[in-house]
């Protein structure tokens, strides 16, 4: 499918250029960015994982997980349920919830680090059919998360031969976020039973914009998230879902 190839091409342009341009510099910047603004990083995980919008092909219920994040030990679940079908002047109503927990942090050596990180997002989506196979939707969500990182006995962390970080002064990174978000987009169900979704979202308090392009089949979502003011601009994601 052409669109899927375009998404992969977009991603590769960025990743390749990032890696070949100045990998060390980008890694250092990203690490420092994470230390100074951990919430930004976790909001992006949260946004990657949540699956806001209407259910696939107007199904009643959808439950799934973001596989790429599962592989990276971020266990997660996303579900949505269409409680009301569209009627005249009343849109389709789909509440949903997603959550994640970084299970990999449990296996960190306790002598050096102890950490926990989790988040969840309830959402409410209103959808309106504007053509036979095209549905316009808008929604609101509330993203909540907590990150707790305790660093012990760390000094002279070697990032490369020429660059070491002394983290002895950093003992604790504790952060929580509660962010209200808005999103809107369009679903287009193609004749091949593949649904294409394009979405734009915004966190008003953070003034953070994001965008998603997603191709869904009855089992998988292949997607690309774009965070224009982030060091890692593009995130690929792959969701597995079951529809009822």
């Amino acid at each position, binding site marked *: 499918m052409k669109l899927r190839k375009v998404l992969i091409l*977009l991603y590769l342009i960025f990743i390749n250029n990032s890696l070949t341009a100045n990998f060390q510099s980008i890694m250092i910047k990203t690490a420092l960015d994470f230390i100074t603004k951990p919430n930004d990083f976790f909001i992006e995980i949260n946004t990657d994982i949540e699956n806001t919008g209407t259910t696939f092909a107007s199904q009643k219920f959808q439950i799934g997980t973001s596989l790429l994040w599962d592989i990276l030990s971020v266990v997660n679940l996303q579900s949505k349920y269409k409680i009301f079908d569209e009627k005249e002047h009343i849109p389709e109503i789909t509440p949903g919830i997603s959550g994640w927990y970084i299970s990999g942090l449990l296996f960190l050596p306790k002598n050096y680090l102890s950490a926990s990180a989790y988040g969840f997002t309830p959402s409410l989506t209103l959808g309106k059919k504007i053509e036979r196979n095209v549905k316009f939707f808008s929604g609101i969500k509330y993203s909540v998360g907590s990150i707790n990182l305790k660093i012990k006995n760390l000094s002279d962390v070697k990032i490369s031969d020429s660059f070491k970080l002394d983290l002895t002064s950093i003992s604790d990174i504790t952060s929580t976020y509660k962010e209200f978000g808005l999103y809107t987009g369009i679903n287009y169900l193609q004749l091949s039973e593949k649904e294409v979704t394009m979405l734009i979202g915004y966190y008003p308090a953070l003034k953070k914009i994001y965008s998603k392009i997603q191709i869904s089949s009855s089992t998988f979502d292949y997607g690309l998230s774009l965070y224009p003011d982030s060091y890692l601009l*593009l995130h690929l994601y792959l969701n597995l879902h079951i529809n009822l």
Partner: protein
Amino acid sequence: MRRVKLILFILFFFIASNLASQIYFNLGIEEGVMVSAGDLFFVNNILSDLAYIIPFTDKGSLITYYQLRYAGPGIGNSAESKFSERSQDHYFMLKYLWKISPNLTLKPAVNYLKEYYKFGKNEEWGQGLYDLNKYGFECSLNYTGIEQTPITLSYSFQIFKYPNYSDLLTLYLTEFQKDEPAEDYKNHLITFILENSSLIQNLFLSIEYDLNLSFYDNKKVLKSDGYTSNENQKYTSHLISFLPQYQLNNKILFGLNFLIEINNSNQNYIFGYDPQNIFFIEDYYSYTSFNIKPSVTYLFSKNKYFSILFSYIGKKYKSRPAQDIEGKFLNSKVDINSVSFGISYYTKISKYFSISPTYLYIKTSSNNKYQRAANYNYDAHLISLSLNYEY
């Protein structure tokens, strides 16, 4: 208060979406990589439009419109480089379309723009020196009584407010007596557009004239002794654009954008911080700019085309002296010349999706070699891919 505004905004768009007879939705993203002087920059732009058309009567309908735009680092649309600036815009507009007669339509509108602007990634959104609130009212009249020659006349009044702006140099020169934001101004814009598609077969012509008058609220004109006069800063801009498009046959389309801008300002400039040792330049901001953009488009089909783009921008300041690389003033006035060449391909990949890869080379040169304020001498290559969804 902010939450109340947000809830009202959501409610308004929710009600509008249910009353609307037509919805327009557009979402475009552009991702690119730019190389200049061995440095690599990412370019990312997002543009999303959402509009509802709500019919009231046979002759009147209301358009509610919201636009969200993010412009990341990249080559700016002027002659100067903009390699790290980024901005996000939230633009709201309510426009009423009133068909007074079959040939005459009146379009009054109110609009509001909130722009966040920052010079680099590490600045916080909402704290930018040039964050902007713009409040606008406009009214345009469209006449279609002459066959294939629509005429539009419009007037808009805009209030520009920069809530975070402060100017340390002015504060110092005025001995910290004036601390109110000095960049706020009011603007009157009168636009006349004439279009024609009947004069010569296959030629579409558009001529536009803009008169732009801006008056600053508090910003005073600087005097040669380093102090300010009682006169407020103002500027007048005349913009004439001539946009012909000629369709040679079913396959080839020629375009030419031709723009001239004459900008007159009454503001002066002072170099140096010691009132006993300053360098005064009168009429620092007035300039004339000339822009020509020819293009050729080859249409493979209705949904696929290839374009060759060229652009030249010449900007000459009336009185601003050029500086050498060390900052020493020269006798000549600043002029900036920017040439760009590009190729672009557009194709629809499904009913609503299109992609467009673009390559652009830009070379800018100037007799002003001093780079502390801005870099006018650079060249850059830009490769980008844009993906667009339009309904």
